[in-house]
Structure formats: structure tokens, C-alpha cells
């Protein structure tokens, strides 16, 4: 599904808009998006990428779009970081640098 057809996540977008993703690591099939302020966004995906996959795109977040099976982070410079969700809900969680919950799907 193209990001243009996915609805904006009205709850997560204002929370994460303007924050910068610096690195994407993997814990099994869970993607971990590290932000500059020390917060961590964890996403349960369908399958981890192969070891030979290129590094994920990073940058400042403009918006978050989400459908039942995909979540996409629109970044500055018109790039996008996209993940296939393991299920329609309960796959995304954002905690700040102190571990406090900021958002759960």
C-alpha cells in the first residue's frame, strides 16, 4: 500500500512530529527506532529484514501514516520509512528517554 493512501495517525503524529530518527536496529522481528532525544519507538513487524539489507532511511519526522498492515514515517526531504505490521493493532510503542510510555498502539 502506498503511503499516500494511508490515513494519518492522528495520535502519534503530533507526539513524534519534529523529532529525528537517528538509527533503526532490530530485535528479532521488532524494529527499534532510536530518536535523538533518547526515546525509543518499538514496532512489531512481520519479519526482520535480511542482514544484507541496506541501512534504513533516517531523518526528521513530518508525519506518521498507518493502515491495518503498514506504518510509514514521512521524513523531511520527501523520504519515507515504512514497516509491515505484525497485526492491525498493538504493534507500536513509544517510550521516552526515562522509559515513560508516550504512545501505544
Amino acid at each position, binding site marked *: 500500500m502506498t503511503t499516500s493512501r494511508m490515513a494519518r495517525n492522528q495520535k502519534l503524529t503530533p507526539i513524534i512530529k519534529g523529532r529525528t530518527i537517528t538509527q533503526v536496529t532490530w530485535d528479532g522481528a521488532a524494529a527499534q527506532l532510536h530518536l535523538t532525544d533518547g526515546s525509543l519507538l518499538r514496532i512489531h513487524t512481520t519479519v526482520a529484514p535480511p542482514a544484507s539489507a541496506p541501512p534504513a532511511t533516517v531523518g526528521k519526522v513530518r508525519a506518521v501514516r498507518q493502515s491495518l498492515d503498514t506504518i510509514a514515517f514521512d521524513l523531511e526531504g520527501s523520504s519515507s520509512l515504512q514497516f509491515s505490521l505484525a497485526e*492491525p493493532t498493538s504493534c507500536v510503542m513509544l517510550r521516552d528517554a526515562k522509559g515513560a510510555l508516550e504512545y*501505544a*498502539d
Partner: protein
Amino acid sequence: MHSSPFSRALATRRLRTSSAIIAGAIATLACERAVSATPQTPQAIVDTASTTLQSVVPADSALRFPDVPNSVRTPGTTLDVTAADICVSGYAKRVRNVPSAVKRQAYASYGVRSHEPGEYEIDHLISLSLGGSNSIRNLWPESFRTQPWNAYVKDELENELHRRVCAGRIELAKAQYVISHNWIIGYRIYVHTKPTSAQARRKTRSRSRRSYSPPRSQFDPPVP
């Protein structure tokens, strides 16, 4: 021929009595017709035999619904959160609303093809306030109308367990177990032996609903 005043008075009195009887009979017939014309009214449902209940109440009506969800379809699932997370003020507001498509899936999985406003809610078996998730495996259509067990009564248990968890009187995992395995038993243990009629009808959240009292649910909770 002239009739006496007494006989005229008696005739008038008899006429009035007859009129009253006829009027009463007409009113009775009208009421019965009105009741039979609206089979969803409680009186019609109470008066009909159980065999005719099926034909009076739609197949996917909340009045047919069980008080506890199907344990295979809705086992209950949680987010990866702790008591420290859920006891922060405003915690539930940080959880995304259930997408409409997932709600429709929940209704469909329980065979609810149509429903009226205020008939059901898509309930989190393990409530958000106890760390429950938005997964389809934690969602089920819960009736507002069954008596005495309904969505309002379950809300009381959710609130009580949340209070106990945040007061350190019960562990979060135990509270999640209690509410997911049989919330009615949990209510009897942690809230009250049985909900009062006022509790069963009380609106714990701002929500519109039909203002009538349906008969008892035909589904009994599982015996522990």
C-alpha cells in the same frame, strides 16, 4: 309512555356502566395490539415462551448475548506495560483508539450483523486501565442491555481492580487474570456479591442508550 325518574336514572347508570366496560375492552385490545406490533418491547418478550423468543428477538440482538466472551475467540491480551505505566494519570489516553475496521471485525466474529446505537460496546476484555491491548483477541461486543451483567457493571470491576493495582493491593498480572478469565466471578469477589439494579443501569461513561429495562439475559455465566 312516560318512565319514572327512578327508572330513567337506572337506565342511565346501566348505559354508563356498559360504556365503561366497552371502553375498557377496546383499550385492552389496543394495548395488546400495540405490544404485539412492537416485539422488541420488554413486555412482549417476557410474556412469550422461550420457544417464541427466537422469532421475536433478532438473531444478533444484544439480548441474546452471553455475559462473558468466547475464551477462544477473545482470550484477552495485554500491552508490554507495567503497573507504573498504567498508574500514571492519563495513561489510557496515550493508547490509540481502536480502528473502525477492527471494531467491525470484532462484531463480525461474534455474528453481530447489525446493531442499534447504545446496544453494545466493543469492550476490551482486559481493560486499557489494566494494560489491555487493542488486539482483536482482546475485543468483544459487550451488551449494555443484559441484566444484571452488562458493560456498566464490568466497568465497576475495571475501576476497582485499577484502584487496587495502583494501591499495591493486587499485582497487575493477577488483576489481568481475574478480569480475563471470568469477570463476573471477579466482580463478586472484588466489588459485590451481585450488582444492584441501580449499579446495573448506571451510566459510568457519557454514552447515549435506549432507556428501557430488558429482561434477564438468557445466558448464565459459567459456574466456577
